[in-house]
């Protein structure tokens, strides 16, 4: 039953129509069938997944109270530490590292009985928009294997869209959940900053990073969101507030009387015609469902990309200093009498890929005395202006919307030699991260010119994540009824499918 949804799997498990062991095995078989082509996984944890599944089946047989996703398999982005399981963040510098502890997200998944199938591929340290920057080779888009699945959580998105897992965890620093969700025709949510603990999430840019859920439906995504969110004393930036009622919102889907703001700056030039066509069509649907569509002006968004590519590299140049070849990870250049400094230099040269080096150098430059105010300082002020633009916009509308990505999935290699072209992939997703608010991407259909998935982005104020799910559910229901099924059912079979 791999082609159903997590909520249907959950129901079948509860009714005893299938065991978690059988369901997990079906997904492991699917991975064995198609992952040679998709390359979504860096590590498949077969034995442990089957053992977790057997434990859930035993608990169920014993009549224990189980969570809604107990026994349902999941794919985990390799940026999250899982005790005893190889965790690389897509980097050669962490090849073979097995964390001695669980990240909070993993601990929550385990206590909810979710079965972790394995670790998924990603751009190295989450730096990228195509998963081509992985130290272990790219992931391929299940819709067209010559194209990227987006990134940086491309492995997780591809696994869900190729039916290798019904749900997955990603992380989103500048769009790394929403953009791959858009490019692979699934749902992805970046929760409000601080809503999901960052304890055990390998840091890229600490003021922007946030883990979040992927699913094939809005409801599945909400169910996973509810499991991983919540206050954690181990993360000093974790929010001490109740988790928004996202599952209830996903079951409601009522936009009557809601005001939906279209951001003037996130459309038009640079956006593919088929992306815009699906976006405007979705707006018409929301309007026909009783929402009021208004246009909002966010002039500082034009500078969001520039601010992001100063703030994130600056933070990463500091965060990645921990990879020093001393306590864990790779160590090279240890010739007789080699100093610690030369070992560090040699290890970081061998262990980091091109894009990571590029960003560390850019961040080092932006933070150096003499340039600090002009670059990092100005970027921080732009960040304030973006927060203010959002505040004004949210006074005029309950949620804001835009296309998730200006383009559909691009070819492998198409942008890998041009950093600026690659950075533009995140132009519509980055403002959410800079403001610390929440955003969702859900499928809006296929672009006419290339038959590839288009994502519709919804944004809501901090800790109003339930608004994403409410609006997302309303739009999804209308689109599914129009299409006669979920968009993902139109995805190619990849051979070997049963």
């Amino acid at each position, binding site marked *: 039953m791999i082609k159903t949804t997590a909520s249907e799997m959950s129901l079948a498990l509860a009714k005893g129509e299938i065991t978690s062991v059988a369901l997990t095995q079906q997904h492991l078989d699917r991975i064995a069938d198609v992952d040679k082509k998709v390359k979504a996984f860096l590590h498949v944890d077969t034995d442990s997944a089957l053992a977790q599944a057997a434990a859930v089946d035993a608990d169920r047989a014993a009549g224990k109270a189980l969570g809604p996703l107990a026994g349902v398999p999941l794919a985990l982005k390799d940026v999250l530490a899982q005790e005893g399981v190889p965790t690389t963040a897509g980097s050669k510098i962490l090849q073979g590292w097995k964390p001695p502890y669980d990240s909070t997200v993993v601990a929550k998944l385990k206590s909810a009985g979710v079965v972790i199938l394995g670790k998924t591929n990603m751009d190295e340290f989450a730096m990228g928009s195509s998963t081509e920057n992985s130290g272990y080779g790219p992931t391929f888009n299940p819709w067209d294997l010559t194209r990227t699945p987006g990134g940086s959580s491309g492995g997780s998105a591809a696994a869900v869209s190729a039916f290798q897992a019904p749900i997955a965890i990603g992380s989103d620093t500048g769009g790394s959940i929403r953009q791959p969700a858009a490019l692979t025709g699934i749902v992805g949510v970046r929760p409000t900053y601080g809503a999901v603990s960052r304890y055990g999430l390998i840091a890229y840019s600490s003021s922007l990073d946030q883990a979040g859920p992927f699913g094939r439906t809005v409801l599945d995504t909400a169910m996973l969101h509810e499991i991983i969110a919540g206050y954690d004393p181990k993360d000093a930036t974790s929010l001490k507030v109740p988790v928004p009622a996202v599952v209830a919102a996903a079951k409601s889907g009522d936009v009557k009387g809601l005001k939906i703001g279209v951001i003037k700056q996130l459309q038009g030039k640079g956006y593919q015609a088929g992306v815009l066509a699906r976006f405007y069509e979705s707006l018409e649907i929301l309007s026909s469902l009783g929402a009021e569509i208004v246009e909002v002006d966010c002039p500082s968004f034009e500078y969001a990309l*520039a601010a992001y590519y100063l703030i994130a590299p600056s933070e990463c140049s500091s965060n990645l200093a921990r990879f020093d070849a*001393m306590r864990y990870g790779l160590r090279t250049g240890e010739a007789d009498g080699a100093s610690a400094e030369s070992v560090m230099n040699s290890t970081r040269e061998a262990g980091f890929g091109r894009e990571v080096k590029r960003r560390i150098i*850019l961040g080092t430059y932006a933070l150096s005395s003499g340039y600090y105010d002009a670059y990092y300082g100005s970027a921080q*002020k732009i960040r304030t202006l973006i927060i203010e633009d959002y505040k004004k916009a949210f006074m005029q509308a309950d949620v804001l919307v835009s296309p998730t990505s200006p383009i559909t999935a691009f070819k492998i290699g198409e942008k890998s030699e041009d950093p600026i072209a690659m950075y533009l992939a995140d132009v519509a997703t980055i403002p959410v991260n800079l403001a610390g608010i929440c955003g969702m991407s859900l499928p809006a259909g296929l672009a006419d010119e290339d038959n590839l998935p288009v994502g519709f982005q919804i944004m809501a104020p901090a800790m109003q994540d339930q608004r994403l799910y409410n609006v997302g559910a309303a739009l999804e229901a209308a689109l599914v009824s129009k299409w006669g099924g979920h968009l993902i059912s139109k995805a190619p079979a990849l051979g070997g499918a049963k």
Partner: protein
Amino acid sequence: MSSLSRDEVAKLAALARIEMSEEELVNLASQFGSILDAVARVQELNLDGVKATSHPQPLENIFREDVVLPSLTPDQALSGAPAQEDQRFRVPQILGEAE
């Protein structure tokens, strides 16, 4: 047009503790101009009087009681170490020659 020379990139790489091949230095220097032009857009606006935001939330120091809590054992903490000795991380020489 911004630019960064090969030597400036080499200096930054040394500060960031990344040994770079000549080819990498030259490549990075050639790409840096367009990257700096793109990010320099943050200087186009008049930002006088605008406060800087370093973080999306108002952060405060968080304290807890000073009591011993469970933590990693020495073996767990050392489990990923490239080299260890007597329950400690063994690192390459960090000071100059003693003699």
